[in-house]
């Protein structure tokens, strides 16, 4: 296993939306979750995570609320808005088209 890949910005937004699509999560949990699911192949650069979250909130894709974690700490939980959900669906479709196209090119040449 090589060094984990730093995620570029456009992809990060997309992954954040995907990660919180099931249930609201706080920033730390989002980063952890992306790392886990990708079997530590992807590493969320912490310097970009929070700016990305605030930008997404400003854009109206996600909303934030303060709540207690299981350890009893107060954390800011992010969840998808309705607009965010439909945006995510579009992004997923785009991604699938892009990745299958790239796969096609990579495999045939």
């Amino acid at each position, binding site marked *: 296993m090589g060094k984990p890949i730093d995620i570029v910005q456009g992809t990060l937004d997309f992954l954040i939306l995907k990660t919180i699509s099931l249930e609201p999560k706080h920033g730390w949990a989002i980063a952890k979750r992306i790392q886990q699911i990708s079997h530590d192949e992807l590493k969320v650069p912490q310097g970009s995570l*929070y*700016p990305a979250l605030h930008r997404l909130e400003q854009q*109206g894709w996600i909303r934030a609320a303060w709540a207690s974690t299981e350890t009893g700490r107060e954390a800011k939980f992010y969840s998808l808005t309705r607009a965010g959900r439909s945006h995510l669906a579009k992004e997923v479709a785009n991604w699938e088209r892009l990745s299958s196209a790239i796969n096609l090119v990579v495999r045939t040449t």
Partner: protein
Amino acid sequence: MRWPDQLRLRVRSLLRRGRVDEELSRELRFHLDQQTDEHIAAGMTPRDARFAALREMGNVLRISEECRDARGLRPLDDLKQDVRYALRTLARNPGFAGVSILTLALGIGLTTGVFSVVSAVLLRPLPYDDADRLVAIVENVPAAENFRGVAMRTSAMNQDEILWWRTHAQTLHVAAATPVRQTIRTADRTVRLSGLRVSPTWFEIYGVQPARGRWLRPDEERPDADVIVISTAMWREFLGSDPRVLERTIVLDARSYRVVGVMPANVFANIAFWLPFFAEPSTPDATTFVSVTSRLRDGVSLEAAAAEVNVLGHQLRGIAQEPDGPARFDVVRVQDQAIARVRPALRILSVAVGAVLIVVCANVANLLLARGASRRREIEIRRALGASRGRIVRQMLTESIVLSVVGGLAGTVIATAGVQLVKPLAVYGLPEAFRSALGPAVLDRSVLPRIDEVTINGGVFTFVLAIAVVTGVLFGIAPALRLSRVERVAAHADASSTSGRSPRRQHGLGHTLAVSQLVLATTLLVVTVLLARSLVKLSSVDIGFDPGVLTFELVAPGSYSPTQRLALAQRVSDELRSLPTVTAAGFTDRPPFSRMGPSWQGPVVPVEREWRGMDRADMAMIRSVSPDYLRALGVDLVAGRWLENRPEGALPTVVVNRAYARRFFGEQNPVGATLRWGTMGLFQVVGVVEDIWLHLPATLEEEPGHAVFMQPRVAKDAQGGNPSFAVRAVGDPLSIVTDVRRVVRQIDPGLAIDGTTTMDRVLGGLQTRPRFYAVVFAIFGAVAALIALIGIYGVLAYGVTQRTKEIGIRMALGARRGEVLGLVMRQAALLIIVGITMGLLGATWSTRYLATMLFGLTPLDGATYGAVALTFATVAIVASYVPARRATRVDPLVALRYE
């Protein structure tokens, strides 16, 4: 659906800044704690775990910054920074800031003042429902049919005709109104009030609703109807705001009326009461004219109404329509009619201030460019540090907008002060008798209609801010673009290329601007000085009497007979004379300068001469005066004696003025001579008085005219006019007003005195219009002159900055300071001479339109032109000396090192 949320979030980020920042640091702290816990769980010591977490997170400050950028706060932060920086820069250059702000404040202030007038007079609708459907029927009377022999446009109507219009007009609701003045008596005083007799439909036509009760009813349109609608002011003053006002009665001129309605307070402020109108049939000798107001019926256009009115009008007069040529009858909107006189002037004024504002922008742009050179180094450094060109332009524009907003605020202060100064000057402040009898009194109270409504309000203020921002961008954009062109390293090369880039063309534009400002300012200054000098001449006319005298009208109720009125006037004048503070008191049928009361002119000649077929110019003005009146006015007696109450049986006596004596008696003394006034009878001359002005002269050459003053008598056809008194007192004439009231009240509590003022004030009031114009032109002239001076200064300063290199070389080659000074001053002198000369030419052209407004001066008065040119040129030279001197301070070493 998204953008309201976005907006809410942005507003939150903006307004609850502290809270948002605090939440961000809590969020990041949570992340750190969580990460630390994980490391501890993996077996690290708490201390190491914390360090590891911090290391992984990186620069917390940068993350916070980026989060705030993500929230879109960056532009706002930048703006705040730019504004603060701009203010600091301006504070560091107080000279530049002061001059720029002054010129902007003058320009914006002038614009604001004019806009406040335009918006109140032209733009704001009259305060009635659907005011644009209120119309007046006008008739264009051709010169041949007018007894004065001039074409006339009138909306007054013979009262017999009103009925005809009312029954026939299908497109209009028509109502008549005619002014009426009545006295009301309370426990301690009697006063005269102005009201209207109106058709019952009048109220509906104006679309007003009664504050209480109802309006007049159609069946009340008859002479014996005893109903009245009163104003809120009258209700308050005479009925103590009694809530049961509709059960009260009001007694006017000894006749009792039932109050049926109350007018709301915000409309028709000058009218106290409304009585039913009724048409009195005209007699062959007298027709009564009424004013007519109409409203377009629903769905009727102005054009349709105009067409119908023209057809009906021709039927009414029984005349054929002219096939082509203008319509004889027409309808116009009341709103347009009210402002028709001033609309062209206000339009011109608006265009003029627009031009002034553009000139101001150009001036400030020049100042900015002149200063730009000294900022080149600063911008070099900023670009070297990584500022983008856009960022520099934004910074520069912020500076210019800050400048213009500060200028705009100062301008608002100037405009407020200006409007406060000019507003009272526009109001005639004259009793009705001295005001022109033309047009409805409401509109003629001031030089500009609706002047009371002119204020610097929220709407005007919004306008100022908009203007300020627009001007800021306008004058800032060119200098900002030019300055931002400075490249990081190539700054020096660029500096030389800027000064090398067709300076002649740039100068050409700047010079044209400076010259045109001088032209405008010179023209305005000439007009101002002409108007001011003419006003001085008008004020110094010898009116032939001492105007420091109290004057008032003695008002008797309409029920008093002419004989009773004369007897009462005589008693009042006798009683007043017996007051210790009064030195003389008398009355007349028509005081000097009044436009009301009988105006007799007749063939009065020495008895042996023929009076038939006499020229109108030779006829004498005839005034009736009580024995003491002329003495009270302070007229000088030249020969003979004053009038006296004559013994029964002898001939009635008269006093003539010097002009009359000269005209009919030459060098001989007319005292004792007998005069004949046509068929009116014989009179004996007992005295000669100095010439006095009975009207205000139109030119300095005009002669006062010859006049005969005779004893008051009761004429057969007396209209029951009210006598006007003159009372001369020891000290301030107004100090005896309370004594006068007391005396009048003791004689008859039903008498009122009205129009109480001094002849001094009357004279002042009669000069309202020329004074108003003189002040307005003075303001415009002063502002234009100041702006032009700043303009010259800016152009020269910019020129000097651009020629720094050239001047440096000249000085290095041995040019002396005096020569450098001469270099700039020669250029200045050329601009000034060309500008002022063209300005004088412009003045000779434009003052032709001024001829009717000038008194005792011609529009081409040489002294005025010379004085303006000389003074203005001197001041302009002084203004150009400042940049010229700066040129002499150029250090050749520094100037050349720049390259």
